[in-house]
C-alpha cells in the first residue's frame, strides 16, 4: 500500500499546473523573442517582484486558515512612506527598519484580534485596515519623498553575483530566505500545522483542542510582519516613499496565491506556491514588455483570465473531493449489493 516519491494528487495538482504554465510561458517567450532566454532576465523576475513574493507568501498563511488580508498593499505603501519620512528626519536607517517591522507586527495583530475576538469578517476588517493605512500615507505626505540616506542606497545597490555577471538584489535574497523560512514553518512547526487544521475545519480544530484563537491572531500578525518586510524590500527597490505606490497590489498577491495553488476556501496549499504564482505573472509581464506593441493593461487581462481558470480549477477540486473516496473497508465487489442492507443477527 505504501509508496514513496511524488504523486500527482488533489493537493499538488495546481502546483504542477503552475509549474507547467511557467515552463510553457517561459518557453514561449524564449522562442518568440531574442534575448528573452537569458539568466539575467530570469533573475530580474526575482529582483522586480521580491516584495510581492514576500507579501504573497505571508498572505498565503492567512488564506490557508480560510481568511484574507486586503491591507497588504496599503501597508507596503505606508512602510515606504514612514521609512522615507523618518529617514528625511535623519533617523538611523537600521532603527527605521526596526520601527517599521514592529509597526507591521502590531498592525497585523490588531487586525487579527478584531477578527477573532469579535468574529468580524476578515474582508471587512482588512478592508478598513487598507483604508486606514492608505489614509495615514496621505497624512504623512501627499507627494513622493525621495530617499537619500546612504545606508538605504548602499542596501539598494547591494548585489549578489551568481554565475559570472548575473546578479540578484538584496531584496531578492531576503525574499528567497523568507520563502524558505515560511516553507519550514508550514511543514515542521505545530503553528504551521495548526494553520492547516484551522483552514480544514475550524470546529474540528477546536474539538481536537488546538489553540485556534492564538493561531488565528498569529497568522494575521505574520501577514502584518511580511507586509512590513515586503515594504522594506520595496522601499530599497524604489528608493522613495509615495502614498500612491502599489494601488491594487493586494489583488496581485491574492492572484499569486490562487495561481500558486493556495485554495481560497482554506486548508490546502504549499508555501512555495505564491512564489510560482508571482513568477508566472512576472513572465507574462516580461513577455508583454518584450513584445513591445501590446499595452500594459493586457497584463491585467491575462492575469485576470488566469485567476478565473485557477479559481475554476480549485472549485472543481473541491467538488470532486466531495464525491471521491478511493478506499473503503468493504470489498469493492460486495458493496453495491450490501450497501444499506441492515445487519441481521439471529
Amino acid at each position: 500500500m505504501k509508496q514513496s516519491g511524488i504523486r500527482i494528487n488533489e493537493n499538488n495538482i495546481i502546483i504542477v499546473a503552475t509549474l507547467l504554465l511557467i515552463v510553457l510561458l517561459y518557453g514561449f517567450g524564449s522562442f518568440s523573442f531574442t534575448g528573452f532566454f537569458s539568466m539575467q532576465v530570469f533573475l530580474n523576475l526575482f529582483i522586480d517582484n521580491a516584495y510581492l513574493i514576500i507579501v504573497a507568501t505571508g498572505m498565503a498563511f492567512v488564506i490557508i486558515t480560510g481568511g484574507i488580508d486586503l491591507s497588504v498593499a496599503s501597508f507596503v505603501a505606508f512602510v515606504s512612506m514612514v521609512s522615507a519620512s523618518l529617514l528625511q528626519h535623519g533617523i538611523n536607517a537600521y532603527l527605521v527598519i526596526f520601527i517599521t517591522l514592529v509597526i507591521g507586527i502590531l498592525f497585523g495583530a490588531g487586525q487579527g484580534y478584531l477578527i477573532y475576538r469579535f468574529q468580524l469578517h476578515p474582508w471587512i476588517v482588512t478592508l478598513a485596515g487598507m483604508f486606514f493605512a492608505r489614509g495615514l500615507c496621505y497624512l504623512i505626505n501627499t507627494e513622493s519623498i525621495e530617499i537619500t540616506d546612504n545606508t538605504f542606497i548602499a542596501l539598494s545597490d547591494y548585489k549578489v553575483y551568481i554565475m559570472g555577471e548575473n546578479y540578484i538584489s538584496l531584496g531578492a535574497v531576503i525574499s528567497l530566505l523568507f520563502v524558505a523560512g515560511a516553507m519550514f514553518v508550514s511543514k515542521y512547526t505545530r503553528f504551521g500545522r495548526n494553520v492547516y487544521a484551522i483552514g480544514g475545519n475550524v470546529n474540528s480544530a477546536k474539538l481536537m483542542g488546538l489553540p485556534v484563537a492564538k493561531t488565528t491572531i498569529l497568522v494575521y500578525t505574520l501577514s502584518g510582519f511580511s507586509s512590513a518586510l515586503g515594504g522594506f524590500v520595496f522601499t530599497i527597490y524604489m528608493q522613495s516613499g509615495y502614498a500612491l505606490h502599489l494601488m491594487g497590489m493586494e489583488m496581485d498577491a491574492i492572484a499569486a496565491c490562487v495561481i500558486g495553488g493556495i485554495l481560497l476556501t482554506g486548508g490546502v496549499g504549499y508555501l512555495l506556491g505564491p512564489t510560482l504564482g508571482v513568477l508566472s505573472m512576472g513572465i507574462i509581464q516580461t513577455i508583454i514588455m518584450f513584445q513591445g506593441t501590446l499595452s500594459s493593461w493586457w497584463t491585467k487581462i491575462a492575469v485576470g483570465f488566469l485567476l478565473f481558470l485557477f479559481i475554476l480549477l480549485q472549485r472543481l477540486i473541491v467538488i470532486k473531493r466531495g464525491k471521491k473516496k478511493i478506499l473503503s473497508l468493504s470489498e469493492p465487489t460486495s458493496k453495491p449489493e450490501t450497501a444499506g442492507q441492515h445487519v441481521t443477527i439471529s
Partner: protein
Amino acid sequence: MNSEYMLKAENISKAFPGVKALSDVDFCLRKGEIHSLMGENGAGKSTLIKVLTGICEKDQGQIFLENQLINPGTAEEAQRLGISTVYQEVNLCENLSVAENIFIGREPKKKGKIDWKEMYQKADQLLKESLNIDIDVKQTLSSYSTAIQQMVAIARAVDISSGVLILDEPTSSLDNNEVKKLFEVMRNLKSKGMGIIFVSHFLDQVFEISDRITVLRNGQLIGEYQTNQLSRTDLVSKMIGKEWGESSNTRKKNAPKFGERSFLRTNRLEKKGSINPIDLTIKKGEVLGLAGLLGSGRTETAKLLFGIDSSDEGVLVIDNNEIKSMNPRLAIEKGLGFCPEDRKVEGIVGELTIRENIMLALQTKKGMFNYIPMKDQRVIAQKYIELLNIKTPSMEQRIENLSGGNQQKVILARWLATNPKLLILDEPTRGIDVGSKAEIRKLILELAAEGMSILFISAELEEMVACCDRVIVLRDRYQIGQLEGEQMSVSNIMEMIAEGAGVVEAGIK
C-alpha cells in the same frame, strides 16, 4: 463506591430555556464493557454525552472518573482527563494526512521540529495494532471513505483516551461490512479493558454489540439493563413509553370516508444510503402514518416525496402523472405541502414577520411577479391566525418571538394557505405545549374530513393511532409492514418495529 466503575455520573440535571433536558439521571460505565445509551428524540442522550465530554455545563450532579471527582469544562479538558469522543460527523480535518489527524497538537518532535518519519511510523503502528487496519497514513484523510475516517477518529480517540471511549452514532453512515469491522475493533478495545459508550438508532446493532443498555426518556432515566435479559419488544416499549399489554388506543374516528382513487403513489422509490425501496399509496382524504424509530427512514421518505432529496430509483406518481425529478417548487405546484421536522432550521424564517412567513409558500406558488396585494395578505394571515388560534399581539411580529407551538401553527398556516391536496407533517407536535398538540391533532382530522390527504409522521404512537387511517412501519431504513383498521394499535406497531414483519422482510432478502 465500587472500583469496577470507569465512569460514574450521579444525579445529573440540565435545563435549557424552556426544556428540562435531563433530570436526576444516573449513568455507570464499567471497565471492559460496551454500554449502549438508548432513547428517542429529546430523551436526553446527546445532552448527557455533552455533559460527560465537557461541551455542556451541567446544572446539578457529579461525575466520577475512576473514583476521582471530575468537572470537565471544555472538550479539551475532558480529553486531557481521558474521555475521548467520536462524533457522528467525523470531527477531523479532511485536508490533513491520516497520521497528522491522529497526532495533531501532539506531534512527535526532534530537535524542535516535527519528526514526520516518527509520526508516520507511530500512526501506522497504532492503526495496525489496535484497529487492525493497514492503510497509507501519508495520504490525506479526504481520500478515504467515511468508514476509514471513522476508524482514524477512533484511533485518535483511543490514543488519547485513558479508558473511556464515547461513540456517538458511529454506524449511521457505514455499510454492513464496515459495521462488522467496527464491531471487531470495539470488541478488541473492550478486551483491553476499555469502557465504551455506544449510541445508535439501530436496534440490531445495539443488541449485537452491547453488554448493557441504559434507556432514557424525556430527560429521565428509565433504567439500566443487561442486554441478554432484555427483549427487543421491552426495549422499544421502554423507549417509546407504554408498557406492553396496556389497553391500546384504537381509532376513535368514524369509518373512513375516503374514496379508492389514489392521489400519490410510489413504486420502489429509493435513495441509496438514505431509504431503501418504498411502496406507498395515499388516497384522497386519507391520513397515512409513517411509524418507526428515529433514523428509521421516516423523514427521509418525506423529503424524497417533496423533492428536497432526489431519488435514485423508482417511480413517483401524483394524480396519475409520473414525476421524473421532483423539486419543492414542482411539489407545491402539484399540491403538496411539507411541515419539516426541524422547525428552526427548515421551517421558520426567523427575521420575517408572521404574515410574511404565512405568505411565503403561496407566493412561490403564484410566482415572483404575481405579487399578492398587501390587503389580501392581511386577510389571509388574519384568517389563519384565527383559524389556528395563533397567539400573537399582531401579525407583524417576528416569528422568532413566538413560542414553539405557535411557530408550528404558522408553518401549518403557510401550507394551508396554498390549499394543498397532500400535506406532509413531519413531527408536527414535537416540542410544543399540550394545548397546541391537541389543536393540531384535531385540525388533522378536520382537514382529512374535508378531503385533504395527509402523510403523518410522529414518534408518539398513540397520536398516530388516534389520527391515522393506516400506518406504514419502517425500521432501519426499510419498509417492513403496514397496519390498518382493528390491527392498528400501539402495541401492534411497537411489536412490528421491534420484531419486524417476517413476511415483508423475507421479501426484501
